[in-house]
């Protein structure tokens, strides 16, 4: 067992890898009533074509999310949520493009909920009837998100950018793919991705971590798992161009919304990826937020409003830089975004602004350690990226002139997509 003590953030945890490969983190949070446990697999909506050994398999879109829903089913009348509730514990889950996570929390004795989390995530128990029944619920979820104009704008942005990349699909998949998903496909998917060697468990609690670890070890000893065969996601070569350079759609909204998105190249190395993402975020803060003295005039001219924002995201095989706002002056907004990218390409931030942003994000990092959910998701994600969790915060402080110049070079306006959400006539 490795004991980690971080003086900077005043946090400690223990780290163990069990015989079956399960990676376990026991994070100490003395004086808290609550305990929280999260199990995560690096299997998300992006992992559509996978190779395991010699077998290559293409899943229907949305299968990771469908599986997340069905993990909660149990034999007979009982279901997982009901059992957690009886223990006075909450349980939930999420699926993102990169991972699926299950988490439970309680202020009561954490042992039983912890066991139940391990048990339900490590066993899939479904039949045709229960799979069919779930489709109505998922359809309702899909429609709920489609009804949210911000979500819809984001989804249409991904669809505009990607020809082949799975991000062109909603996390919950296409309606037709979801409706056609079978029990067999769900089992296959489960077998390929939910092996203990492919998962992490993090326990954040004020309870004695030795006791919790004993419980986990005891629980895992009683279970048999086939030998782990690593599984790889096959990435299709994505063209550099965008699919739709200018796309409009309508919804029942009051104001037009516009997203200006630039497709960038991915970054293979995870550390470099994270650092570049942070650097471009700093460039964006410096150039496209109230830190830019011109920001007020953009508001005054009504080119942007309070909804205005931006985002940068890199994957191994994709990069997206996007700006969005409600605006009735789309041409001016587009020109503003283009101009901002030009400015960022210069790769310059004044020392004063750089230092104040570092201060802002340092405090944000410290304060995030109050939040069990933030710690759990952040830790698990950084584990699968192969980066030390605390380093993901400290990376901002390392950013210097050279990183900023390099990040500037990475930006280009060549592959731009405009996504316009218009009020209905």
């Amino acid at each position, binding site marked *: 067992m490795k004991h980690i003590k971080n003086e900077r953030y005043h946090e400690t945890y223990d780290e163990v890898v069990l015989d079956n490969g399960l990676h376990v983190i026991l994070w100490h949070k003395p004086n808290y009533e609550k305990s929280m446990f999260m199990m995560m697999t690096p299997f998300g909506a992006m992992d559509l074509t996978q190779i395991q050994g010699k077998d290559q398999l293409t899943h229907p879109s949305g299968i990771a999310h469908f599986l997340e829903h069905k993990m909660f089913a149990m034999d007979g009348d009982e279901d997982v949520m009901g059992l957690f509730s009886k223990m006075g514990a909450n349980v939930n889950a999420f699926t993102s493009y990169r991972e699926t996570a299950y988490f439970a929390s309680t202020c009561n004795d954490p042992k039983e909920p912890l066991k139940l989390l391990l048990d339900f995530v490590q066993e899939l128990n479904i039949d045709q009837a229960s799979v069919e029944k779930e489709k109505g619920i998922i359809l309702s979820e899909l429609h709920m998100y489609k009804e949210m104009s911000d979500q819809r704008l984001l989804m249409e942005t991904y669809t505009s950018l990607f020809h082949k990349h799975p991000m062109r699909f909603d996390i919950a998949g296409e309606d037709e793919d979801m409706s056609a998903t079978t029990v067999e496909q769900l089992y296959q998917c489960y077998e390929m991705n939910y092996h203990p060697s492919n998962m992490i468990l993090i326990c954040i609690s004020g309870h004695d971590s030795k006791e919790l670890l004993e419980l986990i070890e005891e629980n895992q000893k009683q279970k048999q798992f086939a030998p782990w065969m690593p599984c790889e996601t096959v990435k299709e070569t994505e063209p550099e161009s965008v699919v739709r350079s200018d796309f409009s759609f309508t919804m*029942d909204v009051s104001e037009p919304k516009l997203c200006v998105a630039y497709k960038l190249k991915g970054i293979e190395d995870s550390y470099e990826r994270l650092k570049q993402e942070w650097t471009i975020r700093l460039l964006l803060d410096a150039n496209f937020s109230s830190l830019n003295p011109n920001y007020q005039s953009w508001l005054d001219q009504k080119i942007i409003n309070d909804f205005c924002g931006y985002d940068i995201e890199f994957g191994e095989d994709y990069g997206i830089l996007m700006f969005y706002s409600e605006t009735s002056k789309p041409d001016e907004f587009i020109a503003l975004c283009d101009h901002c990218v030009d400015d960022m390409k210069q790769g310059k931030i004044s020392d004063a602004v750089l230092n104040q942003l570092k201060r802002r994000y340092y405090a944000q990092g410290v304060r995030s350690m109050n939040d069990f959910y933030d710690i759990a998701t952040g830790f698990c994600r950084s584990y699968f990226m192969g980066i030390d969790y605390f380093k993901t915060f400290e990376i901002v402080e390392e950013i210097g002139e050279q990183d900023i110049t390099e990040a500037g070079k990475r930006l280009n306006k060549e592959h731009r997509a405009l996504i316009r959400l218009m009020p209905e006539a």
Partner: protein
Amino acid sequence: MELFDNVSLQLEKNDKFKDIGISIRFMAPASSETATLRSLLAIMICDRCEKYPTKKQMSDIQDCLYGTVVNAQTVGYGQAQVLEIRTKVIDPRFVKEQNLLQDVFAYLQELLFHPLLNEAAFDEAKDMLKSKLMRLRDDSAQYVIAQGLKIAGEGTPLAISALGDLSQIDKITLEDVKEMHQKLLNEDRIDIIVCGPIDEKQIIEMIQANLPFSDRSIELNTHYVLQSNKNGDYQKELRTVNQSNIFMMWQTNTGVCDPDYYALRVANAMFGQYPTSLLFREVREKRSLCYNILASLITFDGAMTVITGVENEHIDQTIDVIHEQFECIASGNFKDDLLAVSKTMIINSLKASKDSMPSIIAQLYQNQVLKQELSIDERIARIQAVEREDVVRVFKKCRHCLSFVVCQEDQ
């Protein structure tokens, strides 16, 4: 402690948090005339101030204070409305600066006492509030609640949106805002709550030095028991939407200070608060009609609501099932297990509130407003004491007022 007449300070020392939360709450009677005005003022207080008159200067000072962002929001508390100024500052143990807290209080003083109240900032605040209100209208899941409360609460404080009303914005002048600002400082009831790893003596000194309030006299009523003029009405509104949203409301006839209030909390939990509730089991799990369904209490108004989103063709069936589940509880047709597990879940969330700074602040404030000293452990004991017959009794007292649906045009 009372700093002045109707100005209180509550301190909650808690070293487990890595930041210090400061909440300053201004309370005045709720009225449809002032709600929009106060909502505009809330935006302007946080936007800029005389000392930092540009957005850039505001960002600079906030970053200098380690990302100390100040937010303001308006919330209804029954017959009263609260304008809350809230901020969080990193625990000074984590920074080199000696005077961080002092500087934060000085900054708060600038925002509160000297906000930038000029025409340009006023026009911007009006635009911002209009956009916020229009976005709320655009989101049909939020709109169905706002509009449902307006219809069911007609003529009562429930119908007043604390965020304000689109039609009122252009009637308001800058002079009105300035006048309201003075009222806020000099006439509102004020409660200051500070929570986190604090030195109590030091905080009291800083507040006395930086927040120079004074005595005031104000008569305030907060909680009441709603009497809706709707009686099981059904209304629908047609919009271009993919999913239909349902809002249902009951008047509970049980106020927050009623001895039955804790039984109502349990009954609401059994009805639709948790995954174990009847609504979740029957509407979502058994019939696959929805993804989300939730029952909640509007505590200070004596109302209970249910909201869900369903496919168009399932609207009538869903409303029927919701009514059936209500009747199950009101007639005592439920298992003891449901009662037990719902109590367990509420108790768990009460315990969890000790770990959440916003929950700690909310409970301290509720005690202050209701002039009670009810600890979390006492609340737990009251939940624990709820029996089957209590649950049946409180649901029998409820009266269905309205079902309001926003649905597709072909329905």
